[in-house]
């Protein structure tokens, strides 16, 4: 049974179509990254999944309809919208009291354990904390909830690299246990490369790319082509080509590694490189065509 199952999910705001028929099936234990440019519909998809907006089409999260059963669903789903949603007037101890009061699956001791490792004082108000500390607080609250699905919308937006790295490290070591499912959207794809198990690109409200990270690593190869091999390399039908410091860098989908090694230096591309290759392509759905 999938944790999230969507069929023909659609959402329009007036004449703007934010989600244009998305099919989605996320199994338990996956860490799915939903990557897309600004305005692609990422946040709208997440909002539909956590029951913040009504939608058309079919959507079940842990067997619940998120729009009609948000409060019940939230016992098993946790959600970090972005760094700036904790109420500024709230004290840290009040946040702990409140979540412990309303959430049946919250382990207060666990949250305090996380907070003890930070410099956050329990009497501090949220408005007095730095952006990074607010994220730590939110992470402490969320990780102390024994939830089945964690939804993260740009969780590290505006944080410096130390906090960003710490955020994902903490999540993986102290939270993720292969029975939980994590769905994350972000612009900062570099940090996610070794975190994700699955990858999805979204553009103009549609899923334009969908594959597991294992498949990603075996299928896609990036080659810095030797200058004299460029025409030979192009004959292997790269899906994307770019230039960096005078070198041609070609991205291939499902081309034999040994053939590519003959024309240049081969490595696994970054998610960002593939993202540009897929989204930069006007067809938008070329990953099937180039096979």
């Amino acid at each position: 049974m999938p944790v999230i199952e969507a069929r023909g999910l659609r959402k329009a705001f007036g004449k703007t179509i934010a989600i244009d028929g998305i099919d989605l099936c996320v199994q338990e234990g996956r860490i799915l990254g939903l990557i897309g440019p600004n305005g692609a519909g990422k946040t709208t998809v997440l909002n539909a999944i956590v029951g913040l907006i009504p939608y058309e089409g079919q959507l079940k999260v842990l067997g619940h309809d998120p729009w009609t059963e948000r409060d019940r669903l939230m016992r098993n789903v946790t959600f970090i919208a972005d760094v700036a949603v904790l109420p500024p007037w709230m004290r840290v101890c009040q946040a702990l009291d409140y979540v412990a009061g309303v959430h049946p699956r919250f382990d207060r001791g666990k949250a305090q354990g996380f907070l003890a490792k930070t410099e956050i004082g329990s009497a501090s108000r949220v408005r007095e904390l730095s952006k990074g500390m607010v994220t730590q607080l939110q992470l402490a609250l969320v990780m102390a909830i024994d939830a089945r699905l964690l939804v993260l919308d740009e969780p590290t937006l505006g944080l410096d690299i130390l906090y960003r790295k710490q955020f994902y490290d903490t999540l993986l070591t102290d939270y993720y246990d292969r029975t939980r499912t994590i769905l994350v959207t972000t612009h900062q794809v570099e940090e996610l490369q070794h975190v994700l198990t699955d990858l999805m690109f979204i553009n103009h409200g549609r899923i334009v790319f969908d594959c597991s990270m294992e498949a990603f690593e075996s299928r896609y190869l990036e080659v810095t082509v030797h200058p004299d091999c460029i025409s030979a390399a192009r004959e292997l039908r790269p899906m994307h080509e770019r230039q960096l410091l005078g070198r041609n860098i070609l991205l291939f989908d499902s081309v034999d590694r040994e053939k590519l090694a003959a024309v240049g230096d081969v490595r696994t591309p970054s998610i960002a490189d593939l993202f540009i290759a897929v989204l930069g392509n006007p067809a938008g759905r070329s990953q099937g065509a180039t096979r």
Partner: protein
Amino acid sequence: MNTRSNTMPETFVRGGIAPLVMSATRPLYWSVRRELWENRSIYLAPLGIAAAFLVGFLISLIHLPAKIRALSALGPADYRHAIATPYDIAAGLMMITTVLVSVFYCLDALYGERRDRSILFWKSLPVSDRTTVLAKAIIPILILPLITSVIGAAMHLIMLIASSVVLLGSGLGVAPLWAQLPWFQMSLLLLYHIITVHALWPAPVYGWLMLVSAWARRATFLWASLPVIAVAGVEALAFHSVHFAELVGGRLIGASAADERTPGYMFPTNPMTHITPGTFLGSPGLWIGLAVTAAFVAAATRLRRSGGPM
């Protein structure tokens, strides 16, 4: 709207993610507490006003012995008349505070959480919109009147004790004071008056303000008052009458409630004031008002459900 899938087996719900049982009132209790954390004016405003008034009253006690000596020849009614005024003012201040704090609380209740984006945090927790909005409606209708009544009663008690100390120090008796201003009875009257006249009777106004605060994207006070002014203006022009303005104004200051409920003056020190809950509970105006309040609160709940940060 989404179509429901009936193919999803129920066993999945019962299996791994069966929700832990939690008392239904617990989220409501914590939601009310969080309102008090966020809106400290609910108790700080009446406390501040009470403290300022008491300072003035304590200073005025200097003149009390002379005043009582001058009165000693007069009868009990004149005695009460001469000393009751500050107690009426204290009660009146608590009534005004109740209405003012309620109005500003309601205008911000569902607006503030959208403005500071914290609505996303509240909605990430297993608390329904109904519980949240209900907790907010309980504040002006129950919690704030209780707080101001208790503070008003405490003011009266402090005033009586301080007066007694001053009178005893001047060699005067205190029995007439406590007989003319019976503290326990005054406190009950004040509680009854504030809950009926300044909480239940104006409830539709509070409901309307909450609805506007769930809907408006800015300038909640303007959006709340402009329609009222517009309707009143149209009525005045078209029919040369002021029924709507009287209706709303009467709800807000509790004027028409006083007519329907308590004959005579409504200040708690007046011995003529007697509680007639039967008349109040039997008045159609109360129940129509509460029905309108329920409709406003329900509409506010619907708006909050689809509402997001601004």
